[in-house]
């Protein structure tokens, strides 16, 4: 049990993967120190603690690093094994939650990135077309898993809410920048309502950045990246 441990989180406030960890730590009422990383000039600490991927977030518990946001979420649930729990208790429900988390990270979100990188309205529209099947799958998954309740996790935010919800800020930021809808609230009404509930939940509210702020960050980051690579 990690109560009483010194907890630090290495990350950047704008990273949805870092936001996931922040939400989980808040759910468990864990006090921690946030160490700001500079992604354009990665720190020794990051390179040493995550030599395999060199990516944030990295959670430190008594100086021991844990990497990969989904691994970290499960770690937090197990290291602070008190209610509220992040993963469901039933093994089959846990398997379903893990399946959809993997789907979101390995299939769905890469298409959001592809959308971001596509140049021109036509190319972007083609990516949205690719995404439509996955979006419907997520809408159906939400209806099935939530069983009529507010969140994937039931009455309270759980693993899948955190995994998908953390990405919403960036999805909306790209919708603003490109003036195109990625998550269509007519085609995905249940998820649209869940989106509002998730983003206004007290645990999440101060963690997921406002889309407008992310737009600002994105434009600044790309200017800087261009400058350093020239």
């Amino acid at each position: 049990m990690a109560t009483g441990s010194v907890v630090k989180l290495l990350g950047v406030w704008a990273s949805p993967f870092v936001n996931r960890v922040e939400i989980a730590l808040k759910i468990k009422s864990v006090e921690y120190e946030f160490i700001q990383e500079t992604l354009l000039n990665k720190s020794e600490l990051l390179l040493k603690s995550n030599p395999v991927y060199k990516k944030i977030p990295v959670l430190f518990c008594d100086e021991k690093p844990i990497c990969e946001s989904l691994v970290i979420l499960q770690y937090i649930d197990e290291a602070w094994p008190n209610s509220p729990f992040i993963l469901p208790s039933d093994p089959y429900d846990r398997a379903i939650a893990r399946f959809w988390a993997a789907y979101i990270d390995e299939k769905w979100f890469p298409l959001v990135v592809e959308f971001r990188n596509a140049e021109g309205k036509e190319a972007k529209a083609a990516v949205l077309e690719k995404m439509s099947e996955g979006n419907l799958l997520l809408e159906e998954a939400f209806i099935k898993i939530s069983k009529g309740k507010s969140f994937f996790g039931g009455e309270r935010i759980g693993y899948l809410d955190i995994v998908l919800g953390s990405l919403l800020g960036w999805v909306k930021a790209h919708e603003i920048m490109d003036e195109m809808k990625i998550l269509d609230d007519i085609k995905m009404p249940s998820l649209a309502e869940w989106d509002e509930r998730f983003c206004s939940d007290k645990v999440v509210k101060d963690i997921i950045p406002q889309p407008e702020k992310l737009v600002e960050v994105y434009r600044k980051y790309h200017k800087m990246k261009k400058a350093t690579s020239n």
Partner: protein
Amino acid sequence: MADGVVLLDTYVSVFGMRVRIALAEKGIQYEYKEEDLVNKSPLLLQMNPIHKKIPVLIHNGKPILESLIIVEYIDEVWKDKSPLMPSDPYKRAHARFWVDYIGKKVYDAGRNIWSSKAEDQEAANKEFIDCLKLLEGELGDKPYFEGENFGLVDMAFIPYYSWFPTFDKFGKFSIEAECPKFVAWAKRCMQKESVSKSLVDPEKVYDFIVMFRQKLGIA
């Protein structure tokens, strides 16, 4: 098929093998169904409509997908015997991290060894050997990845041992020469009945890949 355990699998699959090891470790009786990946069964398409991939564990009629998820499910349901994962949360996180790495990086790099065009072979070889060296470094001088006992990471990686001769042949290198620590480690793992029973004959892997490359139009 309402009760009981069914495994949809393909005999050469490294992902299937790790589930077979897990089931053997727990002494679970199950029905094994071999899938033809070029001609997938209606059952597979019904149980895994999104990815259409093996392995699929069907327990009491309900499908569980993705090999690491399946292994964790097995560990949680049949929790009274032969734990597959450590109990300490940090060690569990460590194991999940490396199993994820093996599933993502090593698998793709390995696939590129036997499916690359001639001009891409050298780059594919380098990437694969780099992945293996990283894993070899992680193993270090320990008997198993997690220390004194056979665990999840060993279970995830040992199936690749039956693929080593295939990688060697297509890559024209020697994994044994590049990563000597794996030899002793693999022999240690193979002493476990759950492993030796679940791993497939390396010659069968090679024959399968030769045939599969032809089907894919690579050969």
